[in-house]
């Protein structure tokens, strides 16, 4: 029996749009429903992929799961803790990786790793041990003393990644894991995600890249316009065809329009 580690129940998030945003979105409505009653489950030791086009609400969902923003309705439980009522506890059992969380370019990876270790309340030796392991694993050793601002963007991503998992979280939440990475760095990252799975950790990632989901994910949720179109194991969703084919089929079947 698989252990459920993430359970989202009817997550809903609405943003109020300013006049300027209304213009950009080409709408006259003052409210935008970004996520509309989303429910899904992810299991321990698996990689769960949220697949959807631009503006589907993937990032918004992940931000809710990682307690950066609160849902208007619904709730989600990570490691059994509610993101609404026990946000503090949730933060210690997750690692959140996204492009919008930046590292101060003035500091070195070495310093920041220690700093964020302490932010999670870790002991000094535990941080040092983990640093040795992760820096070696990602080839950051050589750059440990270089200011983040002077690193290449690929190296910056790797540093962000190791820092987001400094506290060895049970759940890793990853928004667009391979965005902006070259094929080599992207492979390092995807290999690592698979490795995390091997260690019994759980991963939730978002992407619009079909091949990434096919290669990596155990379960998939297809979202369009904030709604879950279909959820299930990768095999169930694909149903013997390619993911891309299945996606368009689902999309058109629910009244989606291709411009």
């Amino acid at each position, binding site marked *: 029996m698989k252990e459920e580690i993430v359970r989202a129940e009817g997550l809903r998030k609405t943003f109020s749009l300013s006049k300027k945003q209304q213009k950009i979105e080409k709408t006259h409505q003052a409210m935008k429903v970004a996520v509309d009653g989303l429910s899904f489950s992810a299991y321990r030791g698996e990689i769960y992929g949220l697949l959807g086009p631009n503006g589907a609400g993937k990032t918004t969902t992940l931000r809710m799961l990682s307690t950066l923003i609160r849902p208007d309705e619904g709730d989600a439980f990570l490691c059994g803790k509610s993101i609404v009522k026990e946000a*503090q506890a949730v933060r210690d059992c997750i690692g959140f990786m996204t492009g919008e969380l*930046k590292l101060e370019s003035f*500091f070195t990876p070495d310093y920041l790793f220690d700093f964020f270790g*302490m*932010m999670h309340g870790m002991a000094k030796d535990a941080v040092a041990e983990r640093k040795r392991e992760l820096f070696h694993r990602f080839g950051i050793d050589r750059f440990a003393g270089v200011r983040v601002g002077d690193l290449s963007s690929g190296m910056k991503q790797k540093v962000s990644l190791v820092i987001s998992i400094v506290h060895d979280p049970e759940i890793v939440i990853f928004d667009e894991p391979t965005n902006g990475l070259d094929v080599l760095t992207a492979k390092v990252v995807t290999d690592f995600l698979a490795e995390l799975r091997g260690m019994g950790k759980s991963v939730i990632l978002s992407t619009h890249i079909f091949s990434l989901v096919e290669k990596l994910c155990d379960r998939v949720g297809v979202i369009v316009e904030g709604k879950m179109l279909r959820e299930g194991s990768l095999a169930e969703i694909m149903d013997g065809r390619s993911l891309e084919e299945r996606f368009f089929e689902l999309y058109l079947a629910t009244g989606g329009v291709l411009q």
Partner: protein
Amino acid sequence: MKLAALIKKEFFRFFRDPKLIATMILPGILIFFLYSLMGDLLWSEEQKYDFKTVYVGGESAIIQPLLQQAAVQLTGQEDWTLTPAEDVEQAKEAVREEKATALILFDENFDERILSYSPESGERAPQVRIYYCSADETSAAFYSLAISVLDAYESTVSNMFDVNLSDEVFDFSSEADVLVSLLGGFLPFLIVALIFSSCMSITLESVAGEKERGTLATVLVTSVRRSDIALGKVIPLSCISVIGALSSFLGVIFSFPKLMGISVSGMAGAFGISSYLQLLLSVCSVVPFIVALLTLVSAYSKSVKEASAYSGVVMIFVMVLSLAAGIVDMNGLWVAFVPVLGTVSCISRIMDLSVTLGMTLLTVGVNLVYTVVLIFLIAKMLSSERIMFGK
């Protein structure tokens, strides 16, 4: 533990960056040189005067030394003295021909008559006559110097019966009073303005800058308490701003006497140690308040640019309040409870030596309470997703 790490990071950031340290310390140095230079220009202008012979007819044991002292101070001619006039008519002639600077004639028994004179008696008051030549700059300068000394003495005379005066004591306190009231009017404003700008330069960069660059969000996804993040900003930034405030403060303290044409030790004599300590205390207590205020503004803003626009508005309020306190004499306990105004009025009271220790402590306490309230509000803001992550 987490708070300690947050504070350490802020200090590390500051002390490893020579640029930032320079921006903290430079204002003080700049003020010192600017004011010293202004003082030099101002006072060297008057040192041009070179008094020639000034004849004295009659005698006043009180006024003559005062006059002599004032003249030496103005001209810097250490060995200059008043010359007793042997022949009054000859002396007048010398002044008319601009060979001598002036002639002063005291009525007979001037000192005694002054002391025993009463206007009700109907007698003619004892007189001082000064012959001078207003076309001659030096002569005119001496005349106005003499007039001011005599005026000062005249006011002493009327006070004398009231306060059982001794010469030296009065002299000393009168000099200090003039100096102190000048400082009292202008310095508080200057100090607050300097503190505000030094707080602003680092707080905006550290708080609004971090928010704009997305590095604050990275800390927000960890399990650190929001109040710790707020404290982790306000405490170190206050300490650093105190350095900046002290630098500006020292610059003012050391250059102001020069600007006023008096010695640093003269000024130190006018205030006691206790005044200096109280000054330091009230200055240091307003720093965390201003830092917290600017942190709040920065946390609310989306970018450094927006934060500096808001801070500009806050700055205008602070400046108006501190100017108001310098100009208008405000009484009443309520003043102490108005942020900034309380501190500024406390500083000006320290300056004019009318402060009580209780008043200073009240001001410090009020500042602390306001700071705590602001920290609470900052923590609230850090928890608000609309403010932290709204687009």
